[in-house]
Structures are given as C-alpha cells and as structure tokens.
C-alpha cells in the first residue's frame, strides 16, 4: 500500500499527524509531512483512517 500527500491541497488541519503520527509529521506551519510512503502491513489501518480523516482529501492511497 502506498500513501501520497498533495501538499497544495493540504490546509494544515493536522488530522493526519494527530491520528497517525507513525506515518505523518507536521512542518513548521503545521502542514502535514508524509514520513512513510510505503505503508507496512501493520499500519494499513492507520493509513486508511488518515486518508479518510483528511478534510481536504489531500491524502491518496494506492493498493
């Protein structure tokens, strides 16, 4: 499973790094930073939740 973050669409809600800090961090402005694009099997559920929790739909998931 692969994650990607559209940094243009990200508005800094911060849901991703709050919900899945093992996959996302924040930059200095509080916008999301993708840490782990290749999602390990154990984190697939967290990746799904982060994807679905983004108010801007800025996080994409590819199987």
């Amino acid at each position, binding site marked *: 499973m692969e994650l990607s973050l559209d940094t243009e*669409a990200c*508005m*800094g*809600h*911060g*849901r991703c*790094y*709050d*919900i899945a800090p093992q996959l996302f961090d*924040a930059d*200095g*402005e*509080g*916008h999301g930073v993708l840490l782990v694009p290749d999602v390990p099997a154990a984190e697939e559920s967290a990746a799904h*939740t982060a994807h*679905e*929790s*983004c*108010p*801007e*739909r800025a996080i994409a998931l590819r199987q």
Partner: protein
Amino acid sequence: MTDITDTEVAESELADSMGAEGVGGDIAAALAVPDPQPVYAAIAACPIMVLPGDINVVGAAASVDALTRNHHVRGSGALGNTGGAERPLIPLDLDRPEHTGYRKLLDPLFAAKVIAPLEADVRALADELIDTFIERGHADIYDEFCALLPSTIFLRLMGIPATELTYFLDFKNDLLREYPGETVEAGEARVKGAAARCYEYFNTVLDGREASGVPGDDLLGRFLTAEVDGHSLTRENILDICYLLMIAGLDTVAASLSCIIAWLARHPEERQRVVADPAMWPDAIEELMRWETPVPVASRTPTEDMRFGDEIIAAGTHVTVLWAAANLDPEKFDNPMTVDLTRRPNAHYSFAGGFHRCLGSHLARMELRSALDQFHRRIPDYRIQPGVELTYEAIPVRLARPLPLVWSV
C-alpha cells in the same frame, strides 16, 4: 432522514423566515433551538437552495467541497469587512494571493506543536475556575467557565494583562451578540463603538511597546518584528490581525465548550462513558463538534461561474455555506443523525475547509480536550438545573447560554 419532504419543508421555512426579515433575523431564531439538526440535515439533501432575494445556500457536502476547495473563490471579505471593522480583517477577509503571506506568518504561531506546551496552563486554569464554584454545587457554567477559560488563555498569548478580561468580554459581546429590543441604529452604533475601542486599545499598547523599544515575547511582540512578503507589518496590518484574533479567540471556544457541556448534560449515559474512559475525549470532541457545529455558517463567492446540480451560479454571486448542514450529509458520514462518540474517521466541517481553514483549530482542540477532561474529573456527575429549558443562540455562533448546572457536594 433527509427525504424530499423534509427538504421542501426546510426550504419553505427558510424562505418564509428570510423573506420576512432578511437573513439573520428569523432564520437565526428558527435555528436557535436545542436540536436544529433536522433542519440543517434537510438543507444538506439538495445541491443548492436558491431562495427569493438572491439568497443562495449550499449545505450538501459535495457542494461545500467544490466551493471551498475551488481556487477561484473568495472568502467572507467579498461581503465586506467582518464585525464592524474599518478595514478587512487579516487573514479572514483577505483572499489569495495576499492571504497566503499572512498565513505563512500566522500558521506557525498556532501550529499544533507550538500549542501543545500550553496544555498544562489550560488545565491549571480550568482547576482555578472550577475551585471558584465547585463547593457551591451549582453554577452558570457558561459565564463562570466556558466564557472565561479560552479568553484568559488568549489574553496571555496576546500579552494582555488578565485584569483586562472584562473589558474584552464586553467588547466581544458588543460585537457579536444581539440585544433583544434594540433598534437597528442602536445595534450599529454599539458595534461601531466596540470596534473603535478595540483599535484604540491596541494602538495604545503598541505605542507603549514601540516607545519602550521592547517588542515583547508574545503574539503582539511577534507582529511588531514580523515580515510578510519581505515587508514589516504596518500598524494597520497589526491592528487588523489583532481585531480578528480577539473576535475569534474570545468567542468560538467558549461557544464550543457550552455546546458540548450542554449536550453531555442532556445525555448522562453518554457522558458516563467518557467519564469512565477519558481516552475517549479526542474522538468524542470531534463528534460533538460535528454534531453541534458551533460556527455553522460562512460565505464564499466564486470568481468564475460554478455549477451546483442544475443551477449555474454566476461569478461574483455570494453563496452562504452551511458547515452545519454538510456535517449531517449522509453522502459524507455514515448515520449522520446518530451521535457516535467513537466515530472515526470524522472529516467534519466545523473548522471550515479550504484556504480559510480555522487558524486556531489546534489551539481550540487542545483547549477543548484539556478543559473538558479537567472539568469532568472534578465534576463527573451533573444535571441541568431542574425546571430550566436551555436556551441556544444560532448565528453567527451556536452557544448554550446561560448554562445553569447543579451537582452534589
């Protein structure tokens, strides 16, 4: 929950109320009830409602997304300056590209990691406030807790002495509340007077800081030394930021706290679940923010023609955005009319969306979590004062005031 009949009823009710008194009169009254959700949900069922008087309302999540994520859209500034201000509030009333530079200055000041260390302060303040009323066994939790906690924290962030709290609460109430029986002229004069006092207050403080040569290690100090797009902020820039922060910082978290505590007072079994397992707070707060939507409405103005369902909205047309309706759209949320305190994911609209995302959302979430957890550790079991029906305001901010609660001592 949202069939055509509901929608027609909602449209007809809204059209009646808007036609009768204009936006903001009867519509606010119709929504100022403990459970406005069915009306909002009905509005979410259609792509756009076009009402007499060129009033366009979007509440469906897909429409709200299309509008707020559009690069060719303006925020509330297209309607004029917010809240009696002499100039556009920064950044709320600005649009791209100017907006971007100011957000690059302000976002880091309100980033989650910057806000996190304030949690101990918020919990300590919550305890101090609770100490003042817990032994009494009853309190107006709006006036004695909800209104005071976020305002006090905000004055500290700004670098304003706590002794000025009453002055700023009066300012905020004069700007944002409606006073029953007041004439339109008197209301306008009240708002203008409050605006003038706000500018005057900050002018005096900023004069003092400049004269002393010590900008200060607080938000005001940051503004005095900040640069945006390669230039220092002018005095007017700083005043326009301060004005926005005072409005936003003094009112919205107070309102959110009141909505959430009121809901928990009305639903003791749900409250007991969270009290028994405080780890539930973050998801419970997200869900109650979705359900209550304390800031229910905004305005957007597309700068190119946009289609919503069968309607073409011409560039330059003002569109009312109902976050409170989008939060109840079944296309977006499973069982949206059910409050599920463990709901996750929960990509709700209560901090707005698009490039005007609430600047203070990280501060608000931390304050809500800390204040609610602390309150319920101290006062886990309470109820609304017997015989009292809670009263709500709806527009521009939903809140429950007064909020008279009783508990055993």
